């Protein structure tokens, strides 16, 4: 099963990478007011069960992909 995990900073947290990207886009002449960044992981898990796959993904986030102190995440099962 193919999952899509997106990890983003919790609201209100500094996003220096986003800030720098925004500045660079403005330097290039784009009318950009804000950029926020996030990470995407496309994960293939050996499981045919949607629920189980999502449960696994949840656990992956807790254990590795996100730091709960500063990150939010969202999960999605992708069609294959």
């Amino acid at each position: 099963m193919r999952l899509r995990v997106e990890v983003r900073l919790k609201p209100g947290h500094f996003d220096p990478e986003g800030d720098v990207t925004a500045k660079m886009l403005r330097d290039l002449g784009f009318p950009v007011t804000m950029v926020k960044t996030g990470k995407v992981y496309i994960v293939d898990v050996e499981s045919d069960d949607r629920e189980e796959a999502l449960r696994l993904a949840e656990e992956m986030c807790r254990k590795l992909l996100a730091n709960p102190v500063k990150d939010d995440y969202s999960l999605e099962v992708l069609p294959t």
Partner: protein
Amino acid sequence: MGLGISLERMRYLKQYFKERPPTDVELQMIGQTWSEHCFHNVFKGDVITDDGRLINSILKTYIMRSTKELDKDWCISVFEDNAGIIDFDKGYAVAAKVETHNHPSAVEPFGGAATGVGGVIRDILGVWGEPVALTDVLCFGPLETRYDELPPGVKHPRYLYRGVVAGIGSYGNNMGIPTVSGAVIFDKGYTGNVVVYCGCIGILPKDAYVRNTRRGDLAVLAGGRTGRDGIHGVTFASAELTEEAEELRSAVQIPNPIVEERLRRAILRIRDERLATGITDLGGGGLSCAAGEMAYRSKLGVDIELDMVPLKAPDMAPWEIWVSESQERMLLSVPEENLERVLEIFSEEDVEASVVGRFVETGRVRVFTRKTVVCDLDLVFLFNPPKVTRRARIPRLTPAWVDLKEPIDLAGEILTLLSDPNIRSKEDVIRTYDHEVRGCTVVKPLHGEEAGPSDAAVVKPLRDSWTGIVISCGVNPFYPDPYWMAAASIEEALRNNAAVGGRRVAILDNFVWGSPENEDNMGRLLKAVEACYDFSKALDTPFISGKDSLYNESPLGPVRPTLLVTGVGIIPDIRNVVTISLKEEGSRVYIIGSTKEELRGSAYFRLKGVDGGEVPKLDAKLSRSLINSLIRAVDEKLVLSCHDLSEGGLGVAAAEMVVASKNLGIELDLGKVPSNTARSDYVLFSESTSRFLVEVDGARWRRFEELFSGLPFSMVGRVARGIGLRIIDLKNGLHELSGSEIKKAWRGY
């Protein structure tokens, strides 16, 4: 992009391929090997001047000749390998190399600058050196440039500045190599052509410098995978930057410093176990150049199997694999019996490594894919194409009179100069580079509690030796006379080195110029290299390495011709280094050297918008005597602090010493300065060469004066507490600046 081969060389090529047509792999290899970037066609070719001279290779005639004539026994390898190598201490040698990465940085500033750093680090690894320090000199258009001044294809200087600085910092920081020295220059002459110089200094046990590839040795490719990034980087490096620059992003390599970090570990272990017979980095031209050069210089041939090369992307064509300039790759020649151990080390360090071929006796480079030959070239043919001939028109600088009223407010002029983008603090750049990693940095780029600008950086590379490497640079692109510009740059590198106590300086030249097909550009280049010979010889400082980047052209015209001279000196005991901060109330302040009305191209004249008068000239004999005496004074511990006089002259140098000091300032009497001018502003802002401001131990000044007897010098004031600068001008007027005013102007906060 085309291959960029001249007509004459086309004929030579046709001649070689009488029997059969060349394959695409062969054509690509030839294109890369003969490119300006790899072959240094202009520096190694002929030059015909408009005054009727024929010069055979300006590199040999000027730069290499001086080194040869100076014949220093401490020069171990010069102009040959990836980096210049000089003797150090305790059986160790220092390796140094400086490169440019202008074109890639112009289209992809982060990746371009980062891979510039990555490349020069591999040059050090490529002579078995352990990188210990990085340098960077960056030139941008003015940050406040208006968008409507930019033609299509030219990126805004601010964008380039941000990207380049981030790219340099990211690579060095990730690899754990301190970036200790450099410069940042802003000028319209760089708006269309950003200039990015990256340098690396390394250290190696002298007996580990092995270059002995033998027949039967295996060609081992290690490091990152080969991808479609950086294809045609070398031809791109000589292309004019036009509107299609966007599309050229694919010619820029993609950096991955972590791969290089692991590669470094593995290479140094292989070095320490003496397992390989040869090594080179994959830079311009990728595998094609590395394999070809390694075979050619060992008077062998090489067979390469492209199928063995690990790829980043599927379906790459053979020629793409052959010339890809993907980063973080090195080629080693390994005797068969050591192969297992070599692969074991690579795997322990998580570095991918594969045997991709073998060195053979054929004198040819043969490339196979799926057992068929796709390239079979004679190396002698490949490395001896017809020479290129260029024409040079010798420049004659038109004299101009200066019409500038002497200002009343000298203090105000100093503050304005201190906040000039080219003079003010580069803290925003410097602090984003780790300059402390490795724990070897003795003199930091911003030194002292008050973080003043150091003249040179000092690192202590060996645990059980007090000897330090002193790294400095000289760059004066604003002096309009190319001959004296080069002279001043060389001497500035030496001056900066001496200011902290460095001596026995070796230098590196890096030319960034406009198209050599333009006779005026070529003429200016010729004058500059002539000065390189004259002054490296006269100042007794050999060139050990260098590089030229020509063809820096954009819709805004050629780049401002820029010569960077990097100085690599030593200090026998780092505990004797001299820094810029004032140390003691009441100690004496001396100026060394004489001040002349030499302000053409100076920061002061540029600020005032005037051009004229004389450029700073150099008396090499005097310079040597002054520097030698200064070094003796340092060794006798007479010097408490020191700063060289360069951009902004005496006024700025004195102010910068105040910036670096806590609660201490300088009283300065301009009347005491040995000079040939009657104007106070000229005394303050002249950029005459060979000058230093020195704080001398109040109790031992007589000895100091003795060391300088017969030379131009004078006590010009004292260090005082609680003041900034207190200047008495030639008419006895008083000009005062507080320490905090000075600091605010220079730091911007």
